[in-house]
């Protein structure tokens, strides 16, 4: 099976700081993968490189068999690679429905027509149907996250990049959002790459984790391998730390399965 996304030797320097250093990885279609790393590890820069918002100094990105580097952000979206932002950036002053309609107007999906109906369907799916006519300024943080995902989903991505979708959410808001992401993955086979630095929710969601620190990939593996990996433990709680799993009370997919 050929990879949906193939990243090779990706490097980006900002002055003296190397934000992303020689990063290589591949995503298979239908895979749900996490990128883990403390603040400043280069996760968001990696997303900006993949989506064309920043140009890399070195390296190649191949998406769906064609190179991606140098393409403008909107072209990349129209080729099927969509992203959300860490800080939600809605279109202030417009309604929830209008915010999603904009995604339906992307050239690749615009020809399908029925923009408003498609946007409404998507809002129902992410659970915002009842709030379609509200101005976005009035939405809670959790709703804004759902709105971000809805706006990207209407562009019909093959790969969805989620930048810290759980950041700033309360416990009651996290579970439904995680359920939505899980459903997108399971029911539709959407390939998802998800950034998070909070472990708990994240570990139950993904099958494979790429751990980063100081711009480099320091480990790759299943969630339970990653939380025990010495370099990940070091990056998170310093040298000589205890078992990260015990320390953070993390329950991984594997340990759930183990008890079942």
């Amino acid at each position: 099976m050929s990879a949906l996304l193939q990243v090779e030797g990706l490097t980006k320097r900002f002055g003296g700081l190397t934000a992303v250093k020689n990063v290589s990885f591949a995503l298979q279609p239908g895979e749900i993968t996490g990128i883990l790393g403390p603040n400043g590890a280069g996760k968001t820069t990696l997303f900006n490189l993949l989506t064309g918002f920043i140009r890399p100094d070195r390296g190649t990105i191949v998406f769906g068999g064609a190179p991606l580097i140098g393409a403008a952000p909107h072209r990349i979206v129209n080729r099927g690679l969509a992203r959300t932002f860490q800080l939600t950036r809605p279109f202030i002053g417009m309604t929830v429905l209008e915010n999603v309609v904009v995604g339906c107007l992307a050239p690749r999906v615009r020809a399908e027509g029925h923009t408003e109906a498609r946007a409404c369907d998507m809002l129902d799916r992410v659970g915002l149907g009842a709030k379609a006519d509200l101005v976005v300024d009035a939405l809670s943080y959790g709703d804004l996250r759902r709105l971000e995902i809805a706006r990207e989903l209407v562009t019909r991505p093959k790969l969805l990049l989620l930048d810290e979708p759980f950041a700033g959410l309360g416990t009651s808001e996290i579970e439904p959002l995680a359920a939505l992401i899980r459903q997108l993955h399971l029911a539709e086979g959407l390939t998802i790459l998800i950034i998070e630095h909070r472990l708990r929710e994240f570990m139950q969601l993904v099958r494979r984790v790429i751990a980063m620190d100081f711009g480099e990939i320091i480990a790759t593996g299943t969630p339970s391998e990653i939380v025990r990996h010495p370099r990940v433990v070091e990056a998170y709680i310093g040298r000589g730390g205890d078992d990260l799993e015990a320390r953070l009370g993390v329950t991984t997919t594997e340990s759930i399965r183990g008890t079942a």
Partner: protein
Amino acid sequence: MLAWGSLSKTDVIGAIIVVALLATAPFVGSRYIIGIMTVALCYAIWATSWDFMSGLTGRENFGHALFIGTGAYTAGFLNVSFGLSPWWGFPAAAIVAVLFSLLIGFPTLRLRGPYFALAMLSAAVVMQKLSIIFSETTGGQDGLNGLSPMLRSQVSAYYFTLGALVVTVTILKLIALSPWGTILRAIRGDEATCQAAGINVNFYKICALMISAAFAGFGGALYANYQLQVGPDLFDVALSINIIIMVYVGGMGSIYGPVGGALLLIGLTEGLRSFSEYRLWVYTLVLILILFFIPSGVIAPAWVRLRDWIRRSGATFARRANA
């Protein structure tokens, strides 16, 4: 920021009433009043065209006079220097203004920051200087004089200007209500999010500026053909700023609001003549009070409130009638 996303039957009826009232002016007003109102309608076209680009996308243009001036001078040259019929001035003015909009917009609209606003401001100033320096062709400070009139009577010129305004507002409002308008307002909301939704932001910004410039240039030619005179004051910074104030007072992003803003402020300038030397003081004070206390503008928000009140009382009336 209010959303101006829909148009109802009440809106259309309201617009028809306003146009009908404006159309009665020649029957009640003096020649002097009609003259002032024709100029005010030109201002309304300029303000509406400014609002289409800057009100919708949020990219402020501090040199709208560039388009007005180039449009007016184009009409003037064709008429005075080449002896063409005044009617040729309209399409030519729109085309020349669009060329200027590409010249400024193409390199600067893709940049973040104030570059577009500053480039527009300085381009208008440069054109003003050039129009004075090359006085042999442009007439210098005096400008071009003695354009041949397009219409014989003052009243028909007034109706022609009113018709041009109605066409301008209708076209721009229809675009603003279409998916294009949604995209332009989304650009105002957040450009990066727009790109992440797959929208080619630069393309839409440049197109919006071209449309805005076309109508401003057309409005410039209209003004030139009415005044039968074109001067460097049509490139003036004060004109650009005045237009922005008219849009703010009218209600940014509403397209129809700036028409009211232009009529209100021109009317205010004229009405305050009795204050003689204190006129500008009072005018400025009124403006500061409006911008300070009602930053969302006067005309469009007032209409939205009135419309909602009409709807509510209409519904109440219908219920009583049924009961």
